[in-house]
């Protein structure tokens, strides 16, 4: 959201900047900055420009701030490297037979940074406060949270909800006794770091928490600065900042070619140095930041939502159109051409997730083929009889609109999609919208989305049809399949994620390119960082939208 305003102008500026940098990168020394970096390495300190500032402060109970939670707070559970669950504060949990009560035992040696022990009382308080705060933390499925004894807490749900684990991995636990006015500015947590100073709008300084119950962080002082991407890039070059989150365009200067996306343990493969100033490298992390085109699935029969938004599209509701597009789009071309190789092909939107149904993945031969796509169109009765280059069926031209919003790579992808469509005789108009102006057409036009929460419950948002939720971009294509809905109902009503897994995987039989083709998934955009060459992230997990880069902050190190 932050930079939406400037994006258009910025992209052109970015290319100019890149050109200038290439011209000027030779022979301009800045010793002071590099000297300062050397001193930081000596003292195990790090300056990083990662993530956006949580402007509202660091109170986890009154608002989520995504990845930052992990730096100063503990949660009950945490996603491990295989995207399964590990205990954080929790040591054990039980789900009642009726699946409405989750009982969690917590460890007895965790301390807040003010020296007090973390108790069940604090956990219950955090959840109750968050529920009533009316913020972006959605705890509507929770009826109440109560401390059973000093180290046991019970969550009572109002409906079975197997994805409750995700909530328990999201909320940082705050101390009940110290939670009040001003907590957001000087938070007290039980995580690996404690907050020392927050210069609003600029930086936060953290110091390692010596009392931390987990693995001690290797970086002893962590400063996070909040900079524009371009500015951050320059700051790393100067030596003021050691790690910055950048993008494929900036990283791609110097002609870095695409490499195979590797898993975390092959990380060295993903570190690229060519074309960069000495002492810097690019780290390229796999992500589930997935872009895809959502098709309106229903025919337009004059159906409307309560707000009067028209539902359905007569072209995209034809499965042959959707199949043909899925077969035509050259995903590898998108990864190489648009993302400069900093990405990976996606045909399911779920690559690398444990809940992916492997059978639904398209092989490299099954996409990027215009010939195959044309065959599919012909099979479906779409032919270009009037010779205008656009196929038609029953007198109707294959023409529809694709809406996209501002954001990295999005315009380029929409263009590429439309270009490819044109080659097989489908006329796709693209149109830039924002998340408010998109609403009147969201159910009757194709929409380019970026998804990837890294949680299985996202499948609900993507494909749940019956009793369509009040959020327009949840299943905006009005995909309806009773089998899929049944699977989702069963998955959410399961005792936990392990039990839910087969339902999550099962529904993909229909909700995939092999089934009803509700989407044309395109590519995952990797998370790209420019860092000083001695720095290592350790082994980070696959990065979801918004990032889990701080999940393993304790492993970050200089080597």
């Amino acid at each position, binding site marked *: 959201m932050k930079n939406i305003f400037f994006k258009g102008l910025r992209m052109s500026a970015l290319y100019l900047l890149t050109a*200038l940098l290439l011209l000027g990168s030779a022979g301009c020394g*800045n010793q002071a900055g590099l000297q300062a970096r050397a001193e930081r390495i000596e003292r195990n300190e790090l300056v990083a420009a990662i993530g956006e500032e949580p402007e509202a402060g660091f109170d986890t109970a009154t608002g989520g701030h995504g990845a930052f939670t992990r730096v100063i707070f503990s949660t009950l559970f945490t996603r491990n490297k295989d995207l399964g669950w590990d205990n954080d504060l929790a040591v054990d949990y039980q789900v009642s037979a009726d699946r409405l009560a989750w009982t969690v035992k917590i460890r007895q040696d965790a301390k807040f940074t003010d020296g007090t022990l973390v108790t069940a009382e604090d956990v219950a308080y955090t959840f109750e406060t968050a529920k009533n705060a*009316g913020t972006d933390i*959605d705890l*509507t499925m929770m009826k109440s949270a109560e401390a059973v004894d000093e180290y046991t807490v019970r969550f009572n749900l109002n409906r079975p909800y197997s994805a409750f684990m995700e909530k328990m991995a999201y909320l940082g636990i705050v101390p009940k006794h110290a939670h009040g006015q001003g907590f957001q500015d000087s938070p007290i947590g039980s995580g690996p770091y404690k907050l020392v100073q927050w*210069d609003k709008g*600029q930086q936060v300084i953290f110091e390692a928490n010596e009392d931390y119950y987990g693995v001690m962080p290797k970086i002893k002082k962590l400063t996070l600065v909040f900079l524009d991407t371009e500015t951050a890039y320059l700051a790393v070059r100067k030596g*003021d900042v050691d790690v910055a989150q950048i993008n494929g365009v900036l990283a791609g200067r110097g002609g870095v070619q695409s490499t195979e996306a590797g898993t975390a343990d092959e990380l060295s493969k993903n570190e690229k140095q060519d074309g960069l100033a000495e002492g810097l490298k690019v780290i390229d992390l796999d992500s589930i930041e997935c872009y895809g085109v959502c098709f309106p699935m229903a025919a337009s029969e004059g159906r409307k939502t309560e707000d009067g938004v028209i539902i359905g599209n007569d072209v995209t509701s034809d499965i042959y159109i959707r199949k043909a597009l899925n077969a035509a789009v050259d995903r590898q071309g998108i990864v190489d051409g648009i993302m400069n190789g900093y990405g990976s092909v996606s045909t399911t939107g779920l690559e690398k997730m444990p809940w992916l149904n492997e059978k639904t993945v398209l092989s490299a031969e099954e996409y990027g083929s215009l010939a195959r796509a044309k065959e599919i169109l012909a099979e479906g009765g779409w032919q270009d009889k009037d010779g205008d280059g656009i196929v038609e069926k029953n007198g109707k031209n294959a023409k529809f609109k694709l809406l996209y919003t501002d954001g990295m790579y999005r315009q380029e992808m929409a263009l590429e999609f439309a270009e490819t469509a044109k080659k097989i005789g489908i006329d796709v108009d693209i149109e830039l919208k924002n998340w408010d102006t998109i609403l009147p057409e969201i159910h009757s036009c194709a929409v380019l989305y970026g998804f990837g929460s890294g*949680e299985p419950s996202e499948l609900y948002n993507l494909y749940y049809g019956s009793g369509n939720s009040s959020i327009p971009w949840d299943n905006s294509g009005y995909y309806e399949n009773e089998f899929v809905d049944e699977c989702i109902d069963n998955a959410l009503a399961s005792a936990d994620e392990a039990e839910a897994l087969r339902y999550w995987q099962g529904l993909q039989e229909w909700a995939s390119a092999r089934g009803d083709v509700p989407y044309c998934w395109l590519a995952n955009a990797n998370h790209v960082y420019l860092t000083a060459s001695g720095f290592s992230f350790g082994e980070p997990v696959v990065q979801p939208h918004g990032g889990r880069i701080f999940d393993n902050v304790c492993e970050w190190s200089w080597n």
Partner: protein
Amino acid sequence: MFANGLGTKNFILKKLFRLVTLLLAVCVLGFVLMEASPIDPVTAYVGADASVSGEQRALIAEKWGLDKPPVERFCAWFGSMVQGDWGMSVIYRRPVLEVIGEKFAASLLLMAFAWVLSGVLGFVLGILAGLYEGRLLDRCVRGFCHILMSTPAFWLGILMILVFAVWLGWFPVALSVPIGVLASEVSLWDRLLHLILPAVTLGVAGISNICMHTREKTVEVLNSDFVLFAKARGETRREIVKNHLIKNVSLPAVTLQFLSFSELFGGAVFVEQVFSYPGLGQATVQAGLRGDLPLFMGIALISVVFVFTGNLIADLIYRRVDPRIG
């Protein structure tokens, strides 16, 4: 002078009355505009975060009082605003006045520096260009101004960072304080060093306006009858500049400079963005884009007062310098 003093008092009173009516109008208009904008504050707040259900969204709207009719909300907001409670910022979850106070202080320093810089530099360059009309110096200055006019401020900012911070290493890249240093160890010199680059960027971006106007006026004055007369009397070029030119040219320049408060404000938005300078500009954009009504209205009111003050000062200086106006 005394008779004039009484006139000035009336003049200021009249202006103040106008300010109050203007503020009232801004309150109503601002609220109506925010209401009419397609941005839904709840959507803007949770973003496209799919994990927030419709049920939770309704809860958020209720917490913020968004479920009430607009007129009722306006009255509630206006009532407490008049009593000094400007509401809570949705983005910062802090009282609006506190947010504005923090940000405005930082912006003010930045803008003051830039303002003086663009004024002095623009004025001097303008006079020089006018004096050497048509010559190389004039062409250079004009070229410089035209380039600056067509350069977006954020691009100029990135360029400044690249040259003066990265290549030459004279200044820090961004922020208003040194990175990773505790507040107790930050010296005044550190703060100044961080201020220079953004202030110069903002200042330089504002030079062309005043420079071009001053140049025009200079040419006009030099071609006037009284300068011709002065020349005939045998005054040297230096004397003409000192006795006639500067006085005549400074009046419009000063006015223009005070009137430029609004542009300064606009330029600051971009410059603060690039330098991650924690000022009001950035907050303004955020408040607008994310439908933070209390903060947006607060900033609108404050900036009206700010720009109004600039104009008032310009008027007062006019009256002072040129007795014919009154």
